[in-house]
């Protein structure tokens, strides 16, 4: 492969093709950057970190929502790479879409630790005691980079824009599964609504496109279980992890590695 053609759907209307020289390791983002810098300065797309962690460069590549920065041109198997804005979101310009509705859904599920006693959470010098296996129950869902690929791939969102969507439900579940959280009941109520967890048709496209293996489809199923526990088992919320009693700071033991000089403020000079 010596050269490639990048075919971009611009502002939802016309397709423009750009010919580029292929180089080994070239990503779709590399190709877009080259177009803006060498051929067409008006091409609009978002990007930032180049390493698949900031979530900016989600777009539809060869018909599938992907991050441009970690999509190697060579893996697409074709010399013509078709790029479109993410579906299911309003196009503002070229590959830039309006993510505000998506962000609003995230905020709506109360994505933060809820405690009965918020002042203990916000003003304390201690920490909650959490075991590694407890972290393991929610960590995967915390990998979400808010790129919007799952939201774009979801067939339900396409029909029901008020549906919370896979990202928001996965985040609700992430906090429900956190042993420190005491907001289980509030979130069950948010999820057990007409546009909540029951709207999901289990297509699984969210998990298929997720670039970070968050597996939102699994989170939705687990969230449904929580809702059912409330409905049928009348499960009561549990108390969150306890604070650790900190050992008071004591003078260093003998044999502790110490700086080569005595620490006495103002001693030097």
């Amino acid at each position: 492969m010596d050269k490639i053609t990048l075919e971009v759907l611009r502002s939802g209307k016309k397709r423009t093709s750009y010919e580029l020289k292929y180089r080994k390791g070239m990503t779709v983002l590399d190709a877009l950057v080259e177009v803006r810098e060498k051929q067409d300065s008006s091409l609009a797309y978002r990007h930032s970190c180049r390493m698949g962690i900031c979530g900016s460069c989600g777009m539809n590549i060869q018909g599938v929502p992907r991050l441009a920065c970690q999509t190697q041109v060579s893996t697409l198997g074709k010399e013509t790479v078709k790029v479109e804005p993410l579906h299911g979101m309003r196009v503002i310009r070229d590959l830039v879409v309006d993510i505000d509705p998506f962000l609003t859904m995230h905020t709506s599920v109360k994505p933060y630790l809820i405690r009965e006693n918020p002042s203990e959470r916000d003003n304390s010098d201690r920490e909650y005691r959490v075991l590694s296996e407890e972290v393991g129950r929610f960590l995967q869902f915390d990998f979400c980079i808010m790129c919007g690929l799952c939201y774009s791939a979801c067939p339900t969102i396409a029909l029901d824009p008020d549906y919370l969507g896979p990202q928001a439900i996965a985040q609700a579940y992430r906090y429900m599964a956190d042993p420190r959280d005491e907001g289980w009941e509030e979130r069950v109520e948010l999820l057990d609504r007409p546009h909540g967890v029951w709207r999901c048709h289990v297509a699984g496209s969210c998990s298929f496109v997720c670039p970070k293996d968050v597996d939102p489809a699994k989170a939705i199923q687990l969230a449904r279980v929580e809702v059912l526990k409330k409905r049928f088992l009348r499960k009561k919320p549990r108390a969150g992890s306890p604070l650790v009693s900190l050992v008071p700071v004591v003078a260093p033991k003998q044999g502790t590695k110490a700086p080569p000089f005595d620490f006495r403020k103002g001693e030097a000079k």
Partner: protein
Amino acid sequence: MAEVIDHDIIIVGSGLAGLRAAAEVMAASQGKGPTLAIISKLALMRSHSVAAEGGTAAVLYPEEGDSLELHAWDTIKGSDFLADQDSVWKFVTLCPEEMRQLERWGMPWSRREDGRIAQRPFGGHSYDRATFAQDKVGFFEMRTLYDKLQEYDGWSRYDETFVTSLVVEGGAFRGCTAIDMKTGRFVYFRARACVIATGGAGQIWKFTATSVSTTGDGIGLAYRAGLPIEDMEFMQFHPTGLIPTGILITEGARGEGGYLLNSKGERFMERYAPSKMELSPRDVVSRSIMREIAEGRGFKDEDSGLSYVRLDLRHLGREKIDSKLPFIKELSMKFVGIDPVEDPIPIKPTAHYTMGGVCVNDSGRVLDADSRQVKGLWAAGETACVSIHGANRLGSNSTAECLVYGRLVGRDVVRYLASEGTGPRDVVSPQVAKEETRIFDGLMKKETPSEDVYAIKAKLKEVMDRSVYVFREEAALTDAVREVRALKERFKGVRATDAGRQFNYNLQDVLEVDVMLDLAEVVALGALNRRESRGGHSRVDYPQRDDKAWLRHTIASRAESGPQFSFWPVRITMWKPVERKY
């Protein structure tokens, strides 16, 4: 005409320092106080802080042997004694509270057997105090803070809004001008207090670990508003940037036991730092790598033409790599097709962290060239030079600084507003109209540009990579200054070629490159001036540290003819400088 938007507090930048400051403002004012706005050229959760990987330093377990004194000493020694020691002390005392605060806000810290927060070894620290959550520490910290902010009402967000200038008049901050990228509107944010938290300037180099957004905007904003900037010649080159793009492979990889190998298969750190080996501070390791390459013991990547050495994790085994370094595995596999369980990773030093920045006092208040506080203006995080890191930052101290200083500044802003009251709003400064003219009648003038902004940017990066990298010397630096100045001259012929209103990224590129050129000039001149080797600044023609002449901070102020330099003393309150050996 600029649309005027009024707020009490604006935070420019949405990385760790900016979001932490915002969370503190909201917590301190309980949502009833001053109105807060966060302005960022990215969507708020996309800032480069998400790319921080390995850890955040804090003394969590003094009863087990660590101590604040030891953290302070490691930091000061790591800084090659250029850090201001009273600031370092303040910093280390506040780090532990920040780790526990984030924990109580939901941070998924990795845990010890007993359910308490785990820590790992990191370069230059003489105790295992890098607090970590797998190898995505900055990412999880950002998520925690972004999510925490969703709990509060009463703050406004201006995502994808590019700030173009600060208005500072009569020794006080008045507001800032910006372009709303979503609509193309020119706006003036009028406010009583402002926190600059826009990160560093790593993008003036080509081989860099930083996001494309890390273009030094906030440092440039202060410099162009006539405020001094400090120690810009001290750039940290992180030893392990992935070939060929420079993206980061965390120091945690060496913290977990990774080796650096040359083409003879030797762990070459033995030659340079026999006691700390791979876990020496970053400047030491970067120089060692470049020496190995210079002496013919490196490898060469045929496609990119870059020379490199290898980071070998194979002996750690699959299980440890999967549990402690999963992101490193993902990056290696996705970007270069290497599974670190099977093969070593090709790396070389990559432009990573701007030790210098906007001059601030130890509360984060911005200072003018006479060391007087500018009323209503703060800077925090990588944008600011406190100076905690001096000539070389220790790994895991940057995210810690963002958190500690974000919080300090947030609290100080609320206090300041409570005492300064809420008088009538200023009249809109004539500077706002001038800025509008500069951009819309100047840079966006409809005429065929004589110069291409992208050619200038590419040339700048090439010059910096070649002449202002790990090792520096007089002739190359003189060349670099000349070339950067020639590029500044050429920039006068640049115009934005895209006339679009919404998401005109071409215009943003032009505005960024303009600032990058200013900063590159300060970096190169500062490096040329400083005839010694200290921390991240290593002169082959002046290989020794020279405390008599150069134990002082470089201060650059903008003038028509270019930067004017002066020097401020280093505040030494605890330990006198000694030879730095590892």
